[in-house]
């Protein structure tokens, strides 16, 4: 690593969601990115480095996409606080890049109006000028620059157009603070000035802070004023005076900013031909994708395609990884003397980690699809279509995105709930998010489906997997409805959702995020899973029985792990599990995918054969004392259902603790999900038995 150079300028990049902000961030910083957290809150802090036109070291801070600086949820406060220079450890930025969609300045300039109030130099990155041109819009760039009083850089970020010009603009020796801003009504201006004097001594622009405080809704104001009763009284008094003079304190600044935006647009954006009734490309796609019949077919079709691809496309790379892992195990086994060390390396490390790494291709495909849905703009349509169903259980179309993300991993899903303003709705979403089948369950489903139906075609396999996902979804809905009616009562929250224009996804961006996920997964396999595998190996190997000629089965039974499995056997026998599966359940409490590596270790230790047999074959050949197979179809289904519903992920427990700021919720979550899992598996196994299945 090079030594950290003196940073010439700190720049924040901000804009509405779906403006291509991340594309510009990635294009500028490449792989020189760092992801951390802001102190005290769980908002992701993404920074990157790049060099200006003359080699100046620049630090770029990626602010979460937002429509306004006005704060309505805790994570929205971060953007504002950073820009006011109030976040410890994050110096106030020297400049803001405001990323705008050139085809919709009427709305996107609103955020610029707020940035100009901050007294920080602003540089406008006018993105997607090609789309604007196609829609018959001509933008007078010089006029826009003059009206805003800031540099305006036309860009097509997805093709890298305008990047050099943007860098040049950022590298100038001095950046000016614009003197242009929305004109407020005189009465309001007077109140803002009076409040600004009270705020003197606060960091950042006090005028901007005064405006934000004056137009804050009452319920958030109390939280923001932090018990400063003098300030609170003054704000309430100012609002009363405004109301007396006929001004709505919440509406007035919004109206003033939009009036300014309209004025700027009227003089700089020219429309060729009348197209207000003409349909854009996006509108045509929406006529199909949100159609009463085709919309549903497309939705179900896309989900089905995703799951089929997870099976078909991932098959070959999974076989390669499996073969490579067996080769490594064989080579290591041949070069190490027999004994505990060889057992540790082969059965513990290689088998344990390898059985999890095998699922990397499937996880990457899942993330590829989720990235595609997100970047193309379809995710918002899915929320639009699903909102009616979500609102039946008192949730929100917005809960759909966290829940859908939870298909990849509950952790980003739970972090995505921060866009939900109401606390109770947010907690309900957090409580049910882990019921959505995350990628860590894929290994368990995959091995169980392979045992359940070895000869079937991919369609039936994908069908069974889709059923598992559906069970999770249904359980999430039922539980959400239950929680909304009992412990977390609140009214169905409001929906306010933008349906952005469809866009061709930037392939490089999706691949970059897949790569990030792969690194996280591999790191997890190399740390948590590795540690658990070694721990498990020890639990399954010690203490050794005293009699020297004990069989492998007796050694396993005598070990601590074996005793734990035996101890819980009475509880899990009604679900169709034996004590060895019990070891798997106990071991996978920390992470679900450990189940697969545990089973691998158990059967490997037990068989103690020279060459590593395929885990699936070993499990298929496993017999109970009476000679019947352990993994009957019913047991396989019962295990899958258990894994659909159980909360077996320490990382999720940790994130829920952090997001809810209490141990109460994660503990409650573990309790209710474990109970649900036991009941679900019991119903499947015993119900199946009653119906004559085995």
């Amino acid at each position: 690593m090079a030594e950290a150079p003196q940073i010439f300028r700190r720049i924040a990049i901000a804009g509405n969601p779906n403006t291509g902000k991340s594309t510009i961030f990635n294009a500028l910083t490449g792989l020189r990115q760092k992801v951390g957290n802001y102190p005290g809150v769980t908002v992701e802090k993404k920074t990157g480095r790049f060099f200006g036109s003359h080699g100046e070291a620049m630090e770029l801070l990626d602010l979460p996409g937002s429509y306004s600086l006005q704060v309505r949820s805790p994570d929205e406060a971060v953007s504002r606080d950073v820009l006011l220079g109030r976040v410890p450890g994050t110096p106030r930025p020297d400049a803001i890049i405001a990323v705008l969609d050139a085809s919709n300045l009427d709305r996107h300039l609103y955020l610029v109006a707020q940035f100009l109030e901050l007294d920080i130099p602003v540089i406008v990155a006018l993105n997607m000028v090609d789309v604007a041109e196609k829609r018959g819009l001509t933008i007078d760039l010089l006029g826009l620059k003059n009206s805003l009083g800031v540099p305006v850089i036309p860009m097509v970020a997805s093709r890298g157009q305008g990047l050099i010009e943007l860098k040049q603009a950022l590298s100038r020796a001095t950046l000016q603070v614009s003197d242009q801003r929305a004109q407020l009504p005189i009465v309001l201006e007077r109140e803002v000035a009076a409040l600004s004097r009270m705020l003197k001594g606060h960091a950042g622009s006090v005028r901007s802070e005064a405006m934000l405080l004056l137009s804050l809704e009452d319920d958030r104001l109390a939280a923001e004023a932090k018990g400063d009763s003098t300030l609170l009284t003054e704000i309430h008094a100012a609002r009363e005076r405004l109301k007396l003079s006929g001004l709505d304190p919440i509406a007035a600044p919004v109206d003033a900013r939009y009036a300014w935006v309209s004025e700027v647009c009227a003089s700089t954006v020219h429309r060729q031909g009348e197209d207000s009734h003409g349909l854009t490309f996006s509108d045509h796609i929406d006529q199909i994708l949100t159609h009463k019949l085709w919309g549903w077919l497309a939705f179900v079709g896309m989900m089905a395609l995703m799951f089929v691809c997870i099976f078909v496309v991932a098959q070959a790379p999974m076989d390669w990884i499996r073969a490579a892992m067996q080769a490594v195990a064989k080579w290591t086994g041949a070069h190490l003397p027999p004994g505990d060390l060889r057992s540790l390396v082969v059965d513990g490390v290689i088998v344990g980690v390898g059985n999890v790494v095998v699922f990397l291709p499937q996880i990457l495909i899942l993330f590829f699809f989720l990235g595609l849905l997100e970047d193309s703009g379809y995710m918002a349509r899915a929320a639009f279509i699903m909102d009616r169903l979500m609102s039946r259980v008192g949730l929100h179309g917005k809960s759909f995105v966290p829940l859908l993300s939870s298909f990849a991993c509950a952790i980003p899903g739970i972090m995505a709930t921060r866009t939900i303003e109401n606390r109770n709705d947010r907690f309900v979403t957090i409580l049910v998010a882990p019921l959505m089948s995350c990628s860590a369950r894929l290994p368990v489903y995959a091995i169980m489906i392979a045992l359940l139906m070895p000869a079937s075609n991919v369609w039936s396999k994908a069908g069974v997997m889709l059923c598992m996902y559906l069970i999770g979804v249904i359980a999430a809905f039922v539980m959400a409805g239950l929680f909304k009616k009992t412990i977390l009562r609140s009214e169905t929250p409001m929906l306010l959702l933008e349906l952005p224009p469809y866009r061709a996804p930037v392939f490089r961006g999706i691949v970059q995020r897949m790569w990030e996920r792969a690194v996280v997964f591999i790191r997890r396999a190399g740390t948590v899973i590795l540690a658990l595998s070694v721990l498990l190996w020890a639990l399954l190997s010690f203490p050794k029985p005293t009699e020297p000629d004990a069989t492998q089965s007796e050694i396993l039974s005598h070990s601590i792990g074996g005793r734990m499995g035996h101890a819980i056997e009475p509880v899990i026998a009604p679900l169709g599990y034996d004590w060895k599966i019990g070891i798997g359940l106990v071991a996978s409490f920390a992470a679900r995918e450990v189940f697969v590596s545990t089973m691998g270790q158990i059967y490997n230790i037990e068989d103690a054969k020279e060459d590593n047999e395929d885990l699936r074959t070993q499990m298929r050949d496993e017999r109970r004392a009476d000679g019947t197979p352990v993994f009957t179809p019913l047991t396989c289904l019962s295990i899958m259902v258990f894994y659909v519903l159980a909360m077996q992920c320490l990382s999720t427990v940790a994130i829920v603790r952090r997001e809810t700021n209490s141990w109460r919720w994660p503990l409650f979550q573990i309790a209710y999900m474990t109970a649900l899992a036991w009941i679900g598996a019991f119903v499947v196994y015993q119900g199946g038995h009653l119906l004559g299945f085995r």
Partner: protein
Amino acid sequence: MSESVENAEPRSDAEPLSGLQPGQRGKVTAIEVPGAMRGRVMEMGFTIGTVIEVVRFAPMGDPMEFKVRGAHISLRKAEAAGIRVQRI
């Protein structure tokens, strides 16, 4: 494209936005959305004097999609009922 912001008083002929059919347009005369979301609705472009077009209803009849200041925004019928418009 620019809508002049007039000081339009809520008038008796104003009706809820949720009553409009796809393709119909109305000019906002009042925003009576309750609580904390009122400000956010306005910031998304539903300000007094703005012309709003109903684009469609979702496949299950709710929520609705609107075209506001060139952007497509979705609100539920119950919420759109709090926005009063004068049909044009």
